[in-house]
């Protein structure tokens, strides 16, 4: 018989400490849907998604019941649409609508891949897609968009940063009636990954197989509960405790992924070893940092604690599953984490500290609400800063920032559910415009002479 303490521990992790599988994401290649006739192409896209993912939700729900662990999201990522829409030589918005319809038809809550990869320059199709993002996000419900503007190998496309600053602002303006939600579904990446299961930045890379299953695990509440038992342990012990618990969390992700892949007849891709918070009580990454010993997240010491947490999660998770990928690390989305929200409201957590934190964890400036009158060039400069951290450190960084149109510091946007709510955070007001408008490419960094 299985040890009864082990059984009770697992049950407690799920029932009391919010252990869940955050997402099963099916990646679907749309390369075989390319057609110069946009109507035909959109029909192919709809048909392929609804055919491949027709059982995704029901299989997810069945596994959830059998294992007794919640699987919060079932989602879909597709090939970056700019590659599919380029042949049509017109606005790709109908693709977004086709994706939205397909997502509704199979019952997934978000679908990612309205994306373009422009780290080294634009094709005509890329530009058309980027320009259409605000409209596409405003006229659809479940479509998520992302744009990769830089990488360690190529450097940073500063023109793309500039354009994305404006696009983010427009996406927020077009969805003012929905709390500027358009901007919450738009991620700007440096070093974007091909197999990310997490939204809003998921897309299905071109090097991936036709269809595959990726799993994102979660469990900040479980890590915090485990640390609570060691109030006086030294920091090495804390790292060990995180590793052990992370192993257990990730094993469940591996199991769920294998079951889903077998039942859907689709290849199993990767487990994304992430600590993804939710706004629910007891599911916060900030609270883990506070459990380690900070009075509030965002104070001095936060970067060090987060670096330890992020590394220990990976070390524990690596042995627990056969293939690792995606973003893999602790997430720090402000609006989706109860502890981060409190720290931002209290003024302990500033955007500069968040930027420092993104250098040591996954992924970047995430779900941050900024004043509505922020200039597009300032947003572009935030993107460039964040992309520079990713480029130099050979890691993925991202910006998902929401200008709260018509709002100032002290007010807040509230989306409810998993997206949570966020206070408007102040930014520097001096202009970076001259830098941003120089345009061109920031050259790729040197990777020798490390001293």
């Amino acid at each position, binding site marked *: *018989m*299985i040890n009864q303490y082990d*059984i009770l521990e697992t049950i407690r992790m799920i029932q009391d400490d919010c252990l869940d599988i955050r997402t099963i994401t099916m990646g679907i290649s749309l390369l075989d849907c390319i057609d110069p006739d946009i109507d035909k192409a959109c029909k192919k896209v709809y048909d392929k998604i609804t055919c491949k993912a027709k059982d995704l939700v029901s299989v997810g729900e069945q596994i959830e*019941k*059998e*294992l*007794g662990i919640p699987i919060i999201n079932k989602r879909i990522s597709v090939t970056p649409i700019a590659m599919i829409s380029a042949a049509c030589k017109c606005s790709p918005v109908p693709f977004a609508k086709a994706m939205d319809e397909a997502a509704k038809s199979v019952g997934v809550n978000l679908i990612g891949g309205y994306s373009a990869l422009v780290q080294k320059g634009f094709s005509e199709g890329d530009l058309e897609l980027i320009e259409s993002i605000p409209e596409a996000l405003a006229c659809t419900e479940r479509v998520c968009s992302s744009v990769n503007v830089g990488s360690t190998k190529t450097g940073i496309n500063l023109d793309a940063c500039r354009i994305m600053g404006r696009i983010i602002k427009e996406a927020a303006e077009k969805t003012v009636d929905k709390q500027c939600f358009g901007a919450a579904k738009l991620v700007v990446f440096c070093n974007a990954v091909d197999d990310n299961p997490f939204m809003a930045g998921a897309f299905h890379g071109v090097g991936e197989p036709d269809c595959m299953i990726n799993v994102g695990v979660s469990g900040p509440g479980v890590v915090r509960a485990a640390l609570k038992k060691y109030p006086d342990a030294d920091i090495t012990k804390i790292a060990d405790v995180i590793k052990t618990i992370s192993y257990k969390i990730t094993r*469940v992700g591996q*199991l769920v992924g294998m079951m889903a892949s077998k039942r859907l007849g689709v290849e199993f891709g990767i487990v994304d070893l992430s600590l993804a918070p939710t706004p629910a009580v007891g599911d916060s990454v900030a609270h883990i940092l506070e459990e380690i010993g900070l009075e509030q997240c965002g104070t001095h010491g936060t970067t060090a604690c987060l670096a330890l947490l992020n590394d220990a999660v990976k070390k524990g998770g690596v042995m627990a599953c056969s293939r690792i990928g995606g973003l893999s690390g602790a997430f720090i989305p402000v609006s989706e984490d109860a502890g981060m929200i409190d720290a931002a409201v209290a003024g302990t957590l500033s955007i500069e500290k968040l930027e420092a934190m993104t250098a040591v964890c996954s992924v970047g400036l995430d779900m941050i609400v900024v004043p509505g009158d922020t200039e597009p060039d300032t947003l572009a400069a935030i993107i460039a800063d964040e992309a520079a951290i990713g480029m130099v450190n050979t890691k993925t960084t991202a910006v998902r920032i929401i200008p709260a149109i018509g709002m100032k510091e002290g007010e807040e946007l509230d989306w409810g559910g998993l997206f949570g709510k966020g206070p408007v955070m102040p930014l520097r007001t001096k202009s970076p415009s001259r830098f941003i408008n120089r345009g061109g490419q920031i050259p790729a960094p040197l990777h020798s002479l490390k001293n």
Partner: protein
Amino acid sequence: MRAVVTVIGKDAVGILAKVSTECANYNANVIEVTQSVIEELFAMIMLVDISKLNIDFAEMADKLSKKGEEEWGLKVIVMHEDIFNCMHHI
């Protein structure tokens, strides 16, 4: 194929009988039982064979926990043994 049925709640007469009768209704064979009562809190863990069930396993899990909550006033959690094996064994 085996599953773990965990029952937690206030101690009372006949809990084991009720749960095992319900398992029998679905043709789930009880293989092993451990139970303890600590300060009136009853905790029972049953290992059951689910290879010859007469209904879908997910449905049985649903029905048992609903019955526990609505009729017996007990928390009944039914989980496939795979989740425990994968989490606690290398």
